[in-house]
């Protein structure tokens, strides 16, 4: 009996040896980390493909989740750094990645929840942190906020409200792949496992807030992408514009910036009202469908009313690359050069490039991508108490110092820190006069990892 037990032990030893051997081979093959494709099942039945990074040791204390509303973060540059430091990380692409037209923040909470749960259950990590970069900052802050609240105190659905009830159309179950008919989650109905630490990297306050900051108020006709009110044109030399790489000067005319910002608010809210009127119209017909006389109408009339209730419109919104700070380096100064994060010539990019939400459903505009959205980092961060790191490059061309100071100040965390990476652009690449030795990513990763590993040091055994 004793011999048999010993034998089993040795067989296990051999098995362990083989596993170890294959692991080590992997780890060395890919410079200190391994990647694994994983399938994440969300509570509302989606199956998302993500990539998990680890050093293969299977004993990580920390797990990280990186996600962005629309960008594919599955191969984010931070993940290998984390893995080598012993932090297992999941890089994600949200359900709406590459599809801003149908974007809502609320359903994406379930995507994040699936990753957090995976880290806790499969990787058995003790602590989970979220990294929100750029537009992901407000998303991850929202998760930290919502998951810290009890059921009953969370967002119940996007502000555009619940879509047409599919039951009223005679379906017995939720129809497949329909954007209009699929219910939007009431976050009070789902598990949102809590998280332990938040990193807000080069983020703005939210997609809706950002719309007002970047929208071009000189558009006079939404149907015509070159329609122009030249007195509100940021890229008009008469208003202080100079061709990049020269810095513009929008403050020489004292009233211009005030008029400009007023115009930005006005155009943004005009779009919101337009979207709301489309939504109202659909709701009107949806209500007709619920009324008792509806079933007595002839079939074709019922069909036509149903269509009005469910028809999906798309709004095309031209010219969304007009932040004065792009061209005038004296506004909210840092170490940046002229340009936006997507192009050195925002004056041209404003006309030639896609920038979210260049086209979008009225529902998503009102709920997520316009100032009517309830998602606003400055509001939510006040009630996020977990350790929070704000980090940004000083050469970032779209994220400016004053915004970071406002976030830091608003943060409700007792353990919070604001770190600047000198000469780093939006992707933490070296840029501008302070580019220096070019090791910005190394320094950013070190700052993050130091903050993470120190955060719960006193409580750890």
């Amino acid at each position, binding site marked *: 009996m004793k011999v048999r037990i010993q034998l089993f032990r040795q067989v296990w030893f051999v098995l362990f040896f083989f596993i170890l051997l294959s692991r080590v081979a992997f780890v060395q093959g890919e410079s200190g980390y391994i990647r694994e494709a994983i399938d994440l099942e969300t509570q509302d039945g989606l199956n998302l493909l993500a990539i998990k990074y680890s050093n293969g040791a299977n004993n990580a204390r920390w797990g990280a989740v990186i996600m962005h509303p629309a960008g594919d973060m599955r191969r984010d540059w931070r993940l290998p750094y984390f893995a080598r430091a012993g932090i297992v990380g999941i890089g994600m692409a949200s359900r709406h990645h590459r*599809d801003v*037209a149908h974007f809502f923040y609320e359903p994406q909470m379930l995507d994040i929840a699936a990753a957090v749960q995976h880290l806790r259950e499969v990787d058995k990590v003790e602590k989970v942190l979220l990294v929100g970069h750029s537009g992901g900052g407000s998303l991850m802050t929202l998760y930290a906020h919502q998951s810290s609240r009890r059921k009953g105190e969370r967002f119940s659905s996007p502000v555009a409200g619940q879509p047409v009830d599919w039951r009223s159309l005679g379906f017995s179950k939720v129809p497949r792949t329909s954007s*209009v008919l699929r219910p939007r989650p009431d976050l009070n109905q789902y598990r949102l496992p809590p998280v332990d630490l938040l990193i807000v990297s080069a983020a703005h306050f939210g997609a809706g807030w950002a719309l007002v900051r970047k929208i071009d108020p000189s558009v006079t006709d939404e149907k015509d992408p070159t329609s122009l009110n030249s007195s509100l044109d940021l890229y008009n*030399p008469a208003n202080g514009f100079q061709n990049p790489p020269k810095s513009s000067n929008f403050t020489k005319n004292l009233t211009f910036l005030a008029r400009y910002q007023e115009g930005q608010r006005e155009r943004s809210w005009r779009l919101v009202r337009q979207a709301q009127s489309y939504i109202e119209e659909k709701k009107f017909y949806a209500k007709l469908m619920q009324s008792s006389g509806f079933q007595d109408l002839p079939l074709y009339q019922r*069909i036509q009313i149903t269509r009005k209730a469910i028809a999906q419109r798309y709004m095309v919104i031209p010219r969304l690359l007009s932040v004065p700070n792009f061209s005038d380096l004296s506004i909210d100064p840092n170490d940046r050069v002229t340009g936006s994060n997507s192009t050195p010539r925002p004056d041209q990019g404003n006309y030639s490039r896609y920038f979210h939400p260049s*086209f979008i459903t009225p529902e998503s505009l009102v709920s997520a991508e316009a100032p009517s959205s309830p998602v606003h980092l400055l509001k939510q961060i006040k009630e996020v108490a977990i350790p929070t790191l704000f980090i940004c490059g000083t050469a970032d061309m779209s994220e400016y110092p004053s915004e970071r100071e406002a976030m830091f100040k608003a943060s409700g965390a007792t353990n919070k820190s604001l770190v600047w990476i000198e000469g780093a652009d939006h992707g933490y690449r070296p840029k501008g006069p302070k580019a220096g030795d070019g090791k910005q990513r190394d320094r950013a990763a070190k700052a993050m990892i130091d903050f993470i590993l120190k955060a719960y040091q006193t409580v750890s055994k």
Partner: protein
Amino acid sequence: MAQPLLMFFGLLLFWFTQLVAQSEFKRQVVDLEAEDGKKLWALLYTNSTPNPSIGVINIHPRSDRRRDWRLPYFAKAGIPGLGMASRHEKSSENERYEDILLDLAAGVRYLKNKVGVEKVILVGHSGGGSLVTFYAHQSSKRPGGRFSSTFTGHGPNLNKVDLPPVDLLVVSASHFGNAYTFTRKIDPSLTDEEDPTSLDPFLDMYNPSNGFREPPKSSKYSEEFLTRFEEGQQARARRVFNKAESFFREKQFYQSLMKSPLFQELDSYEQIRIERKVISNRYLVIYRLLAIPEFTDLSLDPDDREVGANGSNRPDWANYDRASHPTVIRVEAFLDTYSPHSHVNLLEQIKEVTIPTLFICGTADMQEYPSEREAMLEASGAKVKELVWIEGANHSYLPQGPKAEDGKQRDQAMELILGFVRRNLSEGLK
């Protein structure tokens, strides 16, 4: 004392895990870079078969095929496979097949150079069928004989890129290409492109007085209605083409203005304003793209399908409530990819594709019909070509309709595909 015994068990265990590994498969994330620098990532499916000599790629212009259901079957049969997502994944906004050929070429190179296979199979499902046929066609031509530019001048010059040849083609449940399908599915009853519910009831296939019955009942359209409907489809498609072309010509006008002496006399802001007319990006919004009479009238091009479209059992509503490519698209991409100016046409290109070609489709597919498959088979220029039907399989080869039976449609489909591969790339499989 226990050492020899330990070694024995160790070896036994090793042998056993190898055996298990061979009947299983594993997935691995791989990074790809297209020749124009575009970075992509794919999933590689393998089992532990040593030195595989055949590899397979699954790709679609817009949908993510990284987890295509066929790849585990291929891997278990000893054929490593790449599941890809093209650079235009999830977005028809900028869709252009010419770009995607570079993505595909990167996949083919990866299989040949990194995995070490000698022969490559391309599987194109649905909208991927015309894509892989386009690749097979263009890669079989020498540089000089390929397309050098799209209609609007975007996209790569295919004569200047490396398109490694491929060895076998599987065209699964495909249509002939975007330009073909655009006119096939457009709803002619829309009267105002700005208004998604504008309506000419006379041309509405979801109007009971034209023969429509509410699903799941089959509709019955008259010959006369169908003729009127198809003419209406062509007329609306033409209206959209014309609109796109006029936007494009307007840009060309300003482009020529920029080259004229007049331009030099303008002040800088005037020049900027003309330049904006040239570079400005315009989107077309094209509503109601789910109106194919075969969806609802099962007597047209009959097979074993039920009423519905792929992805919806109520095409009459889906026509209104969701995007279908290309609902929102740039003018230039529309002209290059969805208009008669598109280079992609399966029926034309398949004539000059000579590698072994398998056409496969489910008999319960709700959007791909028998007559089209017969036309493909006939047009195919391959010496070895076959058309196989999977009874009771829908667009995803899942059981559907009256012939669903035992529900093993996916197994059957893969058995047929692997059989075709074995027969025609026999030297490749050990």
